[in-house]
């Protein structure tokens, strides 16, 4: 049975390579997991600071029952010396062009304020940022909805995904304020 021996040897070799590969990845994960988790926390804090400015997270937790919203953050912030309350939502989603993870901020009336991209793995990542996210964040409060709907930007599928995420977060914000 010379063939059987050959097949076994081939399988064993590939199995050994796969096992060593899995071991290497496991060791790398062991080294990097904590740092990656810390980076994610830092990114969330940075995102909340970029949306609300001088702010403090009062409460946070997991959100269920939504397509994209995964976490909520109850935020106290200052606007022209006035103490304000708002909500930030962490949203995660993906389409055929890759993953997107963002923080969306809402004021007391559930008006969308701005968003911060935590992870943007879209193929047209920079186009999505330059042609959709930046104009959306820069739009005046009265024109936010218009900018949100203007998804024809050269990264239309990415922009549509972001729009769906913001709308989902908006629904979550309304739910939270009505409680």
């Amino acid at each position, binding site marked *: 049975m010379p063939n059987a021996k050959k097949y076994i040897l081939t399988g064993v070799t590939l199995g050994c*390579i796969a096992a060593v590969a899995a071991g*290497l990845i496991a060791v790398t994960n062991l*080294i990097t997991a904590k*740092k*990656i988790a810390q980076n994610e926390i830092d990114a969330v804090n940075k995102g909340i600071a970029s949306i609300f400015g001088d702010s403090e997270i009062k409460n946070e937790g997991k959100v269920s029952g939504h397509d994209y919203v995964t976490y909520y953050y109850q935020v106290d912030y200052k606007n022209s010396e006035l103490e304000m309350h708002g909500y930030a939502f962490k949203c995660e989603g993906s389409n055929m062009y890759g993953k997107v993870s963002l923080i969306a901020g809402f004021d007391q009336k559930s008006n969308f304020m701005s968003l911060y991209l935590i992870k943007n*793995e*879209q193929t047209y990542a920079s186009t999505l940022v330059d042609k959709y996210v930046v104009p959306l964040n820069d739009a005046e409060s009265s024109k936010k909805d218009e900018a949100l709907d203007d998804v024809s930007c050269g990264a239309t599928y990415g922009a549509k995904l972001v729009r769906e995420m913001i709308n989902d977060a908006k629904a979550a914000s309304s739910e939270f304020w009505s409680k």
Partner: protein
Amino acid sequence: MAREKGSVRKNFLKGILTENPLFVSILGTCPALATTKTLEAALGMGLLFTIVLICSNVLVSLLRKIIPEEIRTPAYIVIIATFVTMVKMFTNAFLPELYSTLGVFISLIVVNCIVLGRAEAYASKNGPFDSLIDALGMGVGYTLAIMLMAFFRELLGTGGFTFGKVFTFIPETPLIIPGIESYTISLFQTPVGAFIVFAIILAIIAFIKNRKAELKANLAKQEKAKKLAEAQAMAAKQAEGGNK
């Protein structure tokens, strides 16, 4: 085993000049077009690519007598994918800005033709040291090539360079080139601009190559004519001597 004098240098330099993966072999063009918007992103991509190429080349070379012929390609892909995953995790942990800038293109190193090509064409037939030098040369060559593209794209698209945005351990320093800032063409920051820059560089390289070949041919022609003239003169001299 004694190495031929200058062979290491030649092996290293071929990846940068005569066999440059991007400008000569036209391999790895997808990330070259996508990650050359800024000089820093291109440098980051080049470094990650070089690390993966070196690690996979050396390991493939070490295992070249163990891996059976039939499963060569899947085994190489597993090796390359492992190193790409490790590099991706380390980048996510220690250079998060670079990770988010390069995005999906870090994972796409797995399917980069250069990495698999060097494993198949070089590392599987040569020793670990030669494979290391080959990978280093190819990596440096690729990095320099994409940095050259990024240099023109960032300069013409933004009027200068910004350092410290991707490699956040250095302070953010915008470097505006006076005179160019008022004449920036944003097209160069788009994929179309990348194609234009790539095409122009390839055209220049082709022009230089053709010119060199022409000069060589002319030189050979002159040499041939000179030799012919010398032979004729010699023959005439001999004929003259015979007559006397």
